[in-house]
């Protein structure tokens, strides 16, 4: 275990990520103040002992809001990355295995099609048809993760297919599907994990963005993006309203990126030895 601490990125990354994940989990059972109850008498309080991060324009505790908001942000981003990986990685592996074939063309041109639309436009379209909700935000962000993972997987897999150990596996009678799973996937996994953490942080940003324009989680569900959106008219006299959700987004994204970097190194058998 001690080798985990040699890594300069991993430790701060895992700490930041754990803090926000813990905040989200704790909020399921306990929050300092109930975020669905308004308390106008306490509105717009700056940080103080009773409310460490202050209160908003309805007198809700900001710390509690951020804890509940973490739940929304992390859930949205996690499921969106999950959709992207579960659909994108097999597509990329299949495209690489059939390089230059019809399957490759079909998969990659479909990817281009998805890439061709601005994600926000699609999100607007989905909400226009199905209504605004956190679930629809997940679907919109998730769909846009698919081509990202498919392309990354295909690109990395293509170079691997030329390796001699793939040839050796073919000599051992293994088929394309089996080689893809046994040889290609483990060797692109480090890239996928790094890209996964990046997409995770982009997912948090995307959810914040969608909620900011009112297309994401709807009240009373708390969300970091909507907290920012609500605070913008009051930023001149209550800056803490924007500051804390903004910091929460910043630190989570930073933590995830560091975590991704650290994981990439730790998952490489070569670097793993170099660090011990």
């Amino acid at each position, binding site marked *: 275990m001690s080798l985990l601490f040699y890594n300069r990125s991993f430790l701060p990354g895992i700490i930041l990520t754990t803090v926000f994940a813990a905040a989200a989990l704790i909020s399921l059972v306990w929050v300092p103040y109930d975020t669905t109850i308004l308390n106008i008498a306490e509105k717009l309080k700056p940080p103080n002992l009773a409310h460490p991060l202050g209160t908003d324009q309805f007198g809700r505790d900001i710390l509690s809001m951020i804890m509940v908001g973490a739940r929304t942000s992390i859930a949205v981003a996690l499921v969106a990355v999950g959709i992207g990986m579960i659909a994108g990685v097999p597509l990329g592996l299949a495209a690489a295995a059939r390089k230059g074939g019809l399957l490759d063309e079909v998969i990659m041109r479909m990817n281009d099609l998805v890439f061709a639309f601005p994600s926000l436009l699609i999100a607007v379209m989905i909400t226009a048809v199905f209504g605004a909700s956190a679930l629809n935000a997940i679907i919109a962000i998730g769909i846009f993760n698919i081509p990202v993972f498919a392309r990354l997987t295909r690109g990395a897999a293509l170079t691997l297919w030329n390796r001699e150990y793939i*040839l050796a*596996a073919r000599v*051992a009678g293994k088929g394309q599907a089996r080689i893809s799973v046994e040889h290609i996937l*483990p*060797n692109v996994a480090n890239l996928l994990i790094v890209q996964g953490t990046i997409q995770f942080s982009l997912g948090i940003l995307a959810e914040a963005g969608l909620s900011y324009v009112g297309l994401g989680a709807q009240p009373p569900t708390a969300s970091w993006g909507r907290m920012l959106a609500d605070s913008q008219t009051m930023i001149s006299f209550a800056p803490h309203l924007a500051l804390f959700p903004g910091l929460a987004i910043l630190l989570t994204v930073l933590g995830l990126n560091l975590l991704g970097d650290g994981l990439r190194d730790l998952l490489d*058998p070569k670097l793993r030895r170099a660090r011990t």
Partner: protein
Amino acid sequence: MSLLGIDRLSLKIHGTPILKDVSFAVDPGRILGVIGESGSGKSMTAFSVLQLLPNGAECTGNISLAGKDILTCSETELCSIRGREVGMVFQEPMTALNPLQTIGAQVAETILVHENVSKAEAMTRAAKALQRAELPQEKFPLSRYPHELSGGQRQRVVIAMAIALRPKLLIADEPTTALDVTTQAQILDLLKRLVAEDDMGLMLISHDLAVVADLADDLVIMQQGEVVENGPARSLFGAMQHPYSRALLEASSHVPDRLGEAHKTSLLQVRNVVRDYQQHVHGWWGATTHFRAVNDVSFDIRRGESLGLVGESGCGKSTLTRAILGLEEVQGGEILFDGQPVFTHHHANKDVRRRMQVVFQDPYGSFNPRWRVEKLVSEPFHLLQTPLHGHERENAVVEALESVGLGAEDRHKYIHEFSGGQRQRIAIARALIIKPDLIILDEAVSALDVSVRAQVLDLLADLGDRFNLTYLFISHDLSVVRSITDRVLVMKAGEIVEGGPTDAVFDHPNHDYTKQLVAAAPVLPVGAA
């Protein structure tokens, strides 16, 4: 007074000693061969002369170039020395040139950096330099890009860059290792001529004793960062003193002992095989053209024999290998293994495939870096109808590893924990594990140092006798083929041009191409070993 004098040079990188008390000298118009295996510090010595060392390097001792003390020069002074007084030629011509610049611009760049001349003037001189490197303007104008040239031609461009300013010293670091034998001979001739014309000093670094022996006036033999032997080439080859240099010499001309009991029956029959590659010209619906990589090739491999297949890169050797292994379907003819076709109904015949295995050239690229040796070695079990499990499987892995001279404990390690030679042993263990009849060795020892190569050849000979294996030995290295094969086939442009008992073919070649190959192959001086 020497051109380049290195006196008690020691080099440490982050405190790790790399070179220890290296001393030698290069005189104008002379060729100094620096010989050593990988890790012996020969390249680092060359980089010390140019002070192109990695971060954390510390040099002590003395390097003087034409009277100038290199170690006390400032970076600006060094920049004016590099390229002007010392030229350098690297090993890999494929990556030594910028793919986005024309060859003219790249040669002219050296001139523009050092001399205050107009672009047009620099281009004229670049043309002249290319001419001297035997790339005439009529055929190779300055506007060519590197991808339009072959490996040997690119190496000539690199040489033209190095000699454009007529430097006093040329350093060539394994300049021909990545090239075919015939090209190698041409490049070495070119270097020799340039040295004589310009009265240049040449420091020729190589791991191949035979390459250097043909060319060098003086020799330096290095081992683990130290010079173990040093002197004029002629006298040195007759009387090597240091055990290491003697071992090196022996390894270069090593012939493994073999019982060599070849049977009369054929194991593999290749009959009129044709292999075409389709090339698309214009997108999806455009016309396709065909490239014939293997053209009407027929031969037999007899049970228990070791058959060599030699030829230059691009002659179709690897394509033929893949066809034999049943990885790619042929367009004409048939391949029979013990009477059974390798390909049936557009699928590889599994009965045949489990009796053939292959060992590849690159000891670094032929293993999945994320698997442990145990899993790597047992991969061919996939071919068996009833793969072994549990204890039996483990025993088989241990047995295979032990038969190639590795320990049972090695099975729990990852591949990066092994050296190149050990990896090649693991590759052989992987080929052995399902007890095949035929093993195809595709340049299996080409990437190894001479002493390791000799050990692996011994191992192969021993295993061949013990397990009654048949080998198809594919290589561009004639000396290796000669030492281990019974019969040899010479392949050129997809066709077999000559074949027969190895010694007969190499001693009395009939075909022009074989004659060229044999003449081009570097040989150690007679009576050296």
